[in-house]
């Protein structure tokens, strides 16, 4: 971790991509997220850190309404992407998820070929007019996910046959293939070894040029390495949110300090 670099790493973008106000999430009787306000900026990597069960994944899943698939989950408050309330009655979660892609903790490629894995999203959203278009999208997505060189000769082989790190990059390729504007990553490296992790981290940094990336991570080093903004969650509260450099070097809240120095969590 290079502290100098961290401090210098101020974001020059100030466009707010996602604005959340007063977000509350309940699972049955459990109050999982308590009154969270956060502004996520465009073309920025935002890291959510915090101890297990603090609600960071839950909050992430609010951003593309994946919590809708859980019967007992209830979301209150206001989340706007580009000023549009994503919990509005008129919003179709399917359309939203095409705009807000997601990469999961465990690499979960479909048990289909590498090509079909990447082509699936564009196919169902009608992004490709013909086969050549689709081939282009697949190639572009795999290149963006830094998987093209390894996968170009085996596109018809099953995606499940790749190594863990390759599978995760395949999932990233699949997510970017639908041309999202926001990419949500839920602990994308927790199932990967250090080499695969560093590959994915490099990738995340490159993705920042085109997307607003939100990453949930258990590893504070990872948050420090890849993000420009960091949010610290604790027991369902957003404790502190700010520039990554500032959070890691000069936390304002004693809980944040305890966590990043390893005293809690």
């Amino acid at each position, binding site marked *: 971790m290079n502290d100098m670099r961290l401090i210098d790493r101020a974001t020059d973008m100030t466009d707010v991509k996602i604005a959340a106000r007063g977000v509350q999430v309940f699972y049955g009787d459990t109050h999982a997220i308590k009154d969270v306000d956060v502004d996520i900026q465009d073309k920025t990597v935002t890291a959510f850190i915090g101890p297990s069960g603090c609600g960071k994944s839950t909050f992430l899943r609010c951003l*593309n309404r*994946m919590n809708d*698939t859980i*019967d007992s989950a209830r979301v209150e408050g206001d989340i706007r992407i580009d000023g549009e309330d994503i919990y509005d009655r008129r919003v179709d979660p*399917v*359309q*939203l*998820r*095409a705009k807000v*892609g*997601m*990469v*999961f903790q*465990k690499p*979960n*490629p*479909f*048990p289909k070929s590498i090509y079909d894995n990447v082509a*699936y*999203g564009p196919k*169902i*959203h009608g992004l490709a007019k013909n086969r050549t278009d689709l081939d282009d999208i697949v190639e572009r997505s795999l290149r963006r996910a830094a998987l093209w060189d390894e996968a170009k000769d085996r596109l018809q082989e099953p995606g*499940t046959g790749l190594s863990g790190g390759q599978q995760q990059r395949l*999932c990233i390729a*699949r*997510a970017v*293939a*639908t041309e999202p504007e926001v990419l949500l990553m839920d602990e994308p490296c927790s199932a990967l070894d250090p080499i695969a992790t560093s590959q994915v981290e490099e990738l995340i940094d490159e993705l920042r040029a085109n997307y607003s990336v939100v990453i949930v991570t258990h590893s504070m080093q990872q948050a420090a390495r890849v993000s420009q903004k960091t949010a610290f969650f604790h027991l369902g509260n957003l404790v502190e949110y700010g520039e990554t450099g500032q959070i890691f070097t000069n936390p304002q809240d004693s809980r944040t300090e305890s966590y990043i120095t390893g005293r809690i969590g």
Partner: protein
Amino acid sequence: MTDMTAPAAPADAPRKGSLLEQDARTKRRNAAEKRFEVYGIIAVGIGVLALIALLTSILVNGLGAFQQTFLNVEVEFAEDRLDKNGNRDPADLAKVSTFGYKPLIEGALIATVDRLGLRPDGMSDGDIGAMVSNEAAAQLRNRVLADPDVIGTTHTVRILANARIDGYLKDRVDRASAELDGNVTPQQLELTDRLQAAGVLDKAFNWDFITAPDASENRPEASGLGVAILGSLYMMLVVLCLALPIGVAASIYLEEFAPKNRWTDLIEVNISNLAAVPSIVFGILGLAIFINFAGLPQSAPIVGGLVLTLMTLPTIIIATRASLKSVPPSIREAALGVGASKMQTVFHHVLPLAAPGILTGTIIGLAQALGETAPLLLIGMVAFVREYPDAPPEGFFDPASALPVQVYNWTQRADPAFVERASGAIIVLLIFLVAMNALAVFLRRRFERRW
């Protein structure tokens, strides 16, 4: 002696015991483990023995049914008996009943016996004629009706021997039992031996057992499974066409779409209950609803199929839900995450992964339905049916029998030849079941995907 001297550790302090010998506790545990292993082997052994006993008894009793005794006799299709007017008019030919043919065959056999000089001392013509099956006259008549040109010619025809003669060749009848049996005499058995030696009489594989319809009480040698197999096949078609789509649709809805609330819990419990309902109850239901209320015909495969569908549905639903549940949620999340709708998620990803399990469950359900007897008894499938049902879909409404019901039917009859037939039918039924289960295993192996 100084105060400093610490008491030395006693040299004979008990050690924990050598690792080379087991202590009592370990011995007891190992003995218990051994005992349990023996119990397990005994349990498996009992099962295997029971299976072997069952199969042997069925095979010993039933294999005979696939062979039949035939007589090869030269029969003159005498014109003066079969077509008195000599014009080959089908209407006239049809007027001659089997009684008109019987003397022809019996005469032909007697002539053959005498030509070869095989007649035992003092055996009457009537006894010789009685060795021919009652069915033989009908066989001959059908041949003439199908091809009137044979009239006036002489042909060697292959006709069925009587069930007792057949039984003699299969060791079911012997001379001692023939003394006590009103239907067969020791002389006939003697003649059977001589005819067999002369090559007139032989035992051969009997396709008619599989293709022919059932026959009446006194001609077991002619009875076959044709109508029963067709009936079972039609019922399975009905079950497959109804139970698979309904069952799969219900499971997908319950598993993937339905909200989890008191109503779905209630439905779930009741599906499990339905799976445990005795099958005869479904028979009563079928009788009350499909026959008495809806007015569908009795003994029809459509009714049997509907009843068996009701019976199979819970099995299919339970199997399908289990295989849908076994698809990892990460696949659903992945699909939803790229913006697939719920239905796309289910049909593009979940269902293909669950398909092997669904197919297996369906085939097991079908196999269960194929062997089911009780509900069919109540909807009139026990009827004696000699007419083949038509081709589907009309055939679904024609009377038919079913394999297990045919077994039940035959075991009810007096002639011991039917016991052999029943065991033979069980063999056919078992072959179908084993084939279906093998198909289920094959499909599961073939389409199983790992992730």
